[in-house]
């Protein structure tokens, strides 16, 4: 089967004021696959992730050079609509941050923002998104209850449902399991496995086993450089770079 590139990073450099956080990253992100980004804290993997939906720009003093392509179209260009880009490239953050409103309203937030007002259409989207996030069965009888009362694992799946409701094409996940217990983590990993049939997923993780379990491709970052990138099986079984090997075998990081 011909593989399709969903996103492409070309010599991406990110600066926070004088500090260079990323040193010319080149990476191909394949459609309907899970790409994992690993590396020690401060290596630039989160910075790279947040470049993919232009969220880095929110931090004052950020400069970006190089280019990222989504479906062969540059995203760093003056004529790009950032709002439309973020609709296509959704993001799940480290801490499940549900809005202090009901479960229903959390999921409906995105669609409403994008102009959907019809009640039955919203109902449909909410149900579909919660089902896709494996949460429907647990919450279908209490959609109007406050989202903040759910467990951490449920909240993280709710956040995923909220992202799915906007019908993105790519989903970025920034250490989505770091605040979850082992059972919730397993459920989340299963969910990622299901989601990749319809979405392209890029996930930052600290957990080596998690990267090995969920991803098809893995990129190893160190000090703002992409040291090695390839099929997860190859990276983990047969790393080409000594530093990659040291990291995944737990010798540092």
């Amino acid at each position, binding site marked *: 089967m011909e593989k399709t590139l969903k996103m492409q990073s070309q010599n991406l450099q990110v600066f926070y004021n004088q500090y260079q956080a990323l040193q010319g990253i080149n990476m191909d992100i394949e459609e309907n696959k899970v790409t994992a980004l690993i590396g020690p804290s401060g290596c630039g993997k989160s910075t790279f992730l947040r470049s993919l939906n232009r969220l880095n720009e929110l931090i004052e003093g950020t400069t970006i050079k190089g280019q990222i392509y989504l479906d062969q179209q540059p995203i760093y260009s003056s004529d790009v609509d950032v709002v439309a880009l*973020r609709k296509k490239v*959704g993001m799940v*953050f480290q801490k499940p941050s549900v809005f*202090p409103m009901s479960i229903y309203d959390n999921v409906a937030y*995105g669609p409403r*923002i994008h102009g959907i007002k019809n009640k039955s259409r919203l109902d449909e989207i909410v149900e579909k998104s919660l089902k896709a996030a494996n949460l429907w069965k647990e919450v279908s009888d209490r959609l109007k209850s406050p989202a903040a009362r759910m467990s951490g694992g449920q909240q993280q799946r709710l956040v995923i449902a909220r992202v799915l409701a906007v019908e993105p094409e790519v989903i970025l996940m920034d250490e989505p399991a770091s605040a979850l217990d082992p059972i919730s983590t397993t459920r989340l990993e299963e969910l990622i496995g299901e989601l990749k049939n319809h979405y392209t997923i890029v996930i930052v993780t600290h957990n080596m086993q998690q990267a090995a379990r969920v991803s098809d491709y893995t990129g190893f970052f160190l000090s703002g450089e992409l040291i090695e990138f390839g099929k997860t099986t190859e990276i983990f079984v047969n790393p080409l770079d000594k530093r990659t090997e040291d990291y995944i075998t737990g010798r540092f990081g």
Partner: protein
Amino acid sequence: MDVTKQKDKIIYALFWLSGLIIVAILVSIIGYVMVKGISSISLAFLLEAPRRAGAQGGISTTIAGTVYLTVLALLIAVPIGVGAAVYLEEYAHSQSKFASIVNLTAETLAGIPSIVFGLFGFVFLVIFLDLGWSLLSGSITVAIMILPTITRTAQEAILTLPREYRENSLALGASKWQTIWKVILPFALPGIVTGIILSIGRAIGETAALILTAGSSLGMPMSVFDPARTMSVHLYMLAMEGISMDRAFGTAFLIIILILIINYLANLSLRKFSQAVR
């Protein structure tokens, strides 16, 4: 029995005493005002217009004056104050010169005695702009006075919201304005309301600046260009000119009741609101 334990007990008693003093002060003041004022209170006192400079009749026109003036001042100050807070917290860059000037100005405004605002209102609004002694002059003056409080409390309320709310909203494809309107402002509302309550207290309590700008007419204000006397001004006049101490206390009693009602309503709406979102 060790000394440390004894010491702990004494210190505990001192803190307890501090709490008691607060309660005692409030209870005795309210109690005193109530006892002295209750005899003046009647339906007629509430509903009738004052006669003979307030020696007879009721205080209806001053109640109306107080409510109009407060509402008008809030209508002016809340949009500007909350707007400035949103600008400072959401739009301004951290090194923005203009933002630091706005911050400094708000702080300085907060420290200026109200009579200075009154003098300014008198010279600028009443005389120069020829608004005369009127509800409008008075409420603009009060609005300027409460602006720093509203801005500051709104700023703090916005600051306490987690950054994640903004990032999540923006990452869902919301524009900055949508994020502010649908996430930031609704969830900062309790803090904003606190500022509004504090401001209402200040507006109701103001006297000197209002005598200079809204006048002290006892007539019923029929438009924003009419002069008006608020309850606090009325209280001051009754007591200062020796018209009637009993009626001064009656007015004071009603001011306290009014403030209690406002606090209660504000708390109620806040609780309703936080139930809705939690």
